[in-house]
């Protein structure tokens, strides 16, 4: 019966794509998008699910304790695959040459020893805190990015949607309407059937009416040929999703604010050093950033990409050449609007006494300060809205100044 999908190949590939990545966007343009100053800011939030090892992404090679703690997977500034020195202390993973180039051009920055207010080590609660913007885990059904959208003046509706896969990431879930798009190979229901169903839902099930109506509006721009997923592997998928997002967001009537999530960063075993599993994933992330840059074209100038993860990993490698759940990690910023070329960090040091609970990099910067700084720089949101609505009860985490050029 349900073996009705004619083209198994296309749909199963799409299933793969959605398994590794998802994204969603706000359904409206910010009203000031075409204001007189010509600035048309764009924001892309990339969530890395599974907890990124910040000490392997931007390695503190100048810290005398780093090499010992990270052991067999530690990066070094020499050897066959040298890490890329960002300054005299921090070195970038060699799998990220594109980010390194952006950094040199002062369009990328690193914030190190950063963490959300969450201090336990559950992925799922950690992601809840990261995405909901609340100080602790809870069953909140809205994300900080969605609440930020509610504070923005709403302009026209975007005519091309992008997103999501069948589910919207929590960071963008909430009252502000979002749109979705996914590269579909399935033959679509005809408009008449769709309209009859929307009509039925309007009478019987308004929530489904709203969801389906939004789902139906999408597409067009994104459905060009090169948007079809090609990748059979995760790296190709990351690039693919980024390319699709960039194409939609580059359009004059395309979305300005989007979120996407990449899975797979939970490197408990055989994490690898300059090459290996994490290197492979970081290469995918690097490729995705490059896709954003090239796909957004002129618009890259006004863009900020925020890359964040729920928490970091243990400073010392575990017994299986990997790292277990930890605390502080890195956040990355990239984009023409970033005041970059800097590693921003109040470095806590890696001496045993300086580690959080004697095992993790100690957080010295609140991730909310970073995100607030970006939201303020890009969209002019006030301290008060940021501290009360977007990140409730976060007045102590002041917006970081000067992140956006």
């Amino acid at each position, binding site marked *: 019966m349900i073996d009705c999908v004619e083209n198994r190949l296309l749909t199963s590939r799409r299933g793969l794509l959605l398994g590794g990545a998802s994204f969603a966007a706000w359904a409206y343009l910010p009203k000031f998008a075409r204001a007189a100053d010509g600035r048309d800011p764009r924001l892309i939030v990339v969530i890395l699910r599974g907890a990124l090892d910040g000490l392997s992404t931007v390695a503190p090679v100048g810290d005398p304790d780093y090499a010992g703690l990270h052991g067999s997977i530690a990066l070094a500034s020499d050897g066959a695959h040298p890490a890329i020195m960002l300054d005299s202390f921090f070195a970038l993973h060699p799998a990220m040459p594109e980010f390194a180039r952006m950094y040199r051009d002062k369009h990328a920055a690193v914030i190190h020893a950063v963490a959300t207010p969450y201090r336990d080590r559950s992925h799922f609660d950690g992601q809840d805190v990261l995405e909901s913007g609340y100080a602790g885990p809870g069953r909140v059904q809205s994300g900080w990015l969605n609440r930020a959208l509610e504070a923005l003046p709403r302009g026209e509706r975007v005519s091309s949607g992008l997103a999501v896969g069948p589910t919207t990431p929590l960071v963008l879930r909430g009252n502000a309407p979002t749109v979705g798009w996914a590269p579909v190979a399935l033959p679509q229901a005809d408009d008449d059937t769709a309209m009859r169903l929307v009509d039925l839902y309007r009478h019987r099930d308004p929530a489904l009416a709203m969801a389906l109506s939004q789902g139906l509006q999408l597409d067009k721009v994104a459905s060009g040929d090169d948007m079809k997923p090609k990748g059979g592997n995760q790296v190709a998928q990351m690039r693919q999703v980024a390319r699709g997002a960039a194409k939609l967001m580059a359009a004059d009537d395309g979305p300005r604010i989007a979120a996407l999530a990449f*899975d797979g960063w939970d490197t408990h075993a055989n994490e690898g050093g300059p090459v290996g599993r994490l290197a492979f994933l970081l290469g995918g992330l690097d490729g995705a950033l490059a896709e954003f840059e090239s796909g957004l074209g002129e618009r890259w100038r006004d863009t900020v990409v925020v890359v964040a993860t729920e928490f970091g990993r243990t400073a010392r490698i575990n017994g299986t050449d990997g790292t277990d759940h930890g605390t502080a990690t890195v956040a990355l910023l990239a984009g023409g609007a970033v005041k970059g070329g800097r590693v921003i960090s109040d470095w806590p040091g890696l001496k045993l006494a300086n580690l959080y609970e004697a095992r993790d990099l100690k957080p010295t910067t609140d991730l909310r300060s970073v995100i607030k700084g970006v939201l303020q720089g890009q969209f002019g949101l006030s301290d008060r809205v940021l501290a009360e609505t977007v990140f409730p009860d976060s007045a102590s985490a002041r917006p970081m100044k000067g992140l956006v050029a």
Partner: protein
Amino acid sequence: MARDSQAALVALNRFGFGARGGASGDLINAASDPRGFVKAELSRPNGVLLEAPGLQSTPQLGQAVFAYQDQVKQAREAAAKAGAPTEAPPPQAPSDQKPGLRRNLSLNAAATEIAGQMAEAKPTDSKPADTMAKPDTMQPNMAAPPAAKPAPQPLNVIQKTFRTEALARLQRATLVECGFTERLVVFWSNHFCISASKGELARIWAGAFEREAIRPHVLGRFADMLKAVEQHPAMLFFLDNQQSLGPDSRAGQNRKRGLNENLAREIMELHTLGVGGGYTQEDVTSLARIITGWTFAGRQGGLGTPGSFAFNVNAHQPGPQVLLGRTYEPTGLAQGEAALADIARHPSTANFIATKLVRHLVADDPPQALVARLRDVFAKTDGDLKAMATALVDSDEAWKAPLTKMRSPYDFVVASGRLLARVPEDPGGYLNNLNLLGQPLWSPAGPNGFPDTTAAWAAPEGMKLRLDIAAQMGARLGNNIDPLDLLEFAAADAASIETRRTIERAESRQQALALLLMSPEMQRR
């Protein structure tokens, strides 16, 4: 008893997998005695087991993977000798799609060349080339027009097994009377999930894991299910415990490797106590030490039958361990079993399990009185899951709460198949649709399983895809059925006037079927 169609919807959709079409009489039976209809399955615990020709045990399947991997290795070596192009990046890090394709294609070509030599060496498979294709990477590039598509690659033993297991599960779900116990199987399988995407062993073991560790205990004791799950090779592989070595164990000392706390953390966070259930980082590390040595025997069989659970004393951390305030003496395997038994009856576990069950069967925001009652049942019966299920059916809340939960994609495809009275013969369409809708079978993105809330499944893109799938089903099957008959089977007089009118006024039977499958009566439970 008077017929109560509204209660029948609760029995069939909330507890079961939806009414079967045809001559089943499900709706009428459920309407006459809703609670009895649901409870009937609870008195047949053996009915939960799944045995079918072709379904193999975990050790047998593990050995099949080992043999398959050996063959791939031999093929690669043979290809290298023959001077065929060999690009072999490390298995976890294919650098790009194209080299990946080339590698596998050449591998396959080499395999086909030497297939004749291997035909007799293969234990489980009669068609020589079948085991050589690699999942997912063998398909031609999308850019190629469909007309130019080469003949599909034969499936390897891992893919074949996965499909056989999937088909057995789908057939059971389609044929079973109410579907309450099948729903419980799916619930527990998701609670204790593994993901087939972890690797070849996880993929071939996904179905066996459910058959061996979940099904026998769905109407049994939670502690027994917990032990069966945490000692199952699929779980040990999925959460890396086979790599975890006691730092002071002989193997840990020799190999200079040590703990991996992945499984220990998820046992407490996801399987039993729940986050905030009263454990600390110290407890996680302690449990990780306690279960060092829990592994499965490898291809050499040094620890036992290849592919079976094994306790490797050489990898086990020596000495007593303190967990949740209690000291566990060094009794080898029994140390971990004692720890699991205690965790299984911890009050936080009772609360966590009760909450999840009520969320699944009643409402996203679980009524606290019912949670409390189930928690008590769990405590008083020492985790008797049949008693828990019975208490749910006996509760008023489950019958009074409005049917607002969204059917998950798996619920949706199974309920559609049941209503259309079509017994699946090929799992392919189901598996594709589940991929499309974001619930790939036995493959959640993380160890917390698929979400169980309406918000997760009623997203815009998901709804649109459901409609596309329903429209395809309508186009294909609508010709031969009367949608109004189906509406009688599905909801009878519990159907809303609007739904009935929408179906009556549809411009074609095809359209009517699509609209019926998408109606609130079919989407909500």
